[in-house]
């Protein structure tokens, strides 16, 4: 893992997709680690009452996975300058999320790259849309 320099980055270039099956155990662990007790993420009866077949992952868990994909591409968590998403559809426990992205712009003078991002589930739901991130590049003289 090493940070990217402007010469490493091409507009239109793709990030390596990150695919992860998100289990109920994982969602329950995230609820505990993040301190979010909302039962829609852990109680099947509550999830069904809201029309979901099973508990749903926290939007923030899906954003964490997307952020990992960006940081893996950029060469570390500290390279991620910003990230934003719309939580368009919930990810159901047991489903698989695939995070993808491409380079939208590179600002060599500022040492920044802009990414467009999204995440789909294996049921075809667009889980995260309108994703954007900016990444700090390094100068390599």
């Amino acid at each position: 893992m090493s940070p990217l320099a402007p010469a490493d980055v091409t507009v239109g270039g793709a990030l390596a997709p990150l695919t992860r099956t998100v289990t109920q155990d994982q969602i329950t662990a995230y609820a505990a680690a993040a301190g979010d007790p909302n039962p829609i993420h852990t109680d099947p009866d509550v999830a069904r009452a809201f029309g979901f077949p099973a508990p749903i992952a926290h939007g923030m868990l899906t954003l964490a996975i997307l952020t990992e994909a960006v940081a893996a591409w950029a060469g570390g968590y500290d390279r991620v300058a910003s990230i934003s998403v719309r939580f368009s559809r919930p990810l159901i426990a047991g489903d698989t999320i695939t995070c993808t992205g491409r380079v939208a712009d590179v600002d060599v003078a500022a040492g920044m790259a802009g990414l467009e991002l999204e995440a789909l589930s294996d049921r075809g739901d667009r889980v995260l849309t309108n994703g954007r991130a900016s990444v700090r590049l390094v100068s390599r003289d």
Partner: protein
Amino acid sequence: MPDPTHVGRRYQAPGQVIESAGAARFAAAVAGSDPVAALGPIPPTYAAVYCLFPTLGQIFLDPEVGLELAGLVHAEQSFEFAAAPVPGETVDATAEIVGVAARRGRWFVTVTMEAHRPSGEPVVSGRALLIAAGAPA
């Protein structure tokens, strides 16, 4: 129920300690059955723990705002990471309601949040859009 007069309400969550053990539990939960990513000590969205949930949680429980929690949707989120948090450091988090609008029977509540070091140096800032039921149709 929410009301545009709630714009400007601020919530404080001082003294958030960024603990390595907590960040490691968080990173393990994000990884699930995959190996934990070796990308640094603190995942960026650990800001959920030291900034977002401690402040949004207060908004959820503010009886004067009266958000209907059943079916509350976190619709959008953005973060800007000004500085990488250092394990063991303490930051102060704040949030502010910056928008309240009723559309098609639902409340659209926009909240900004930030966390900074005791020196005032910013660590993270962010913006959340929450959508809740109970607005006039």
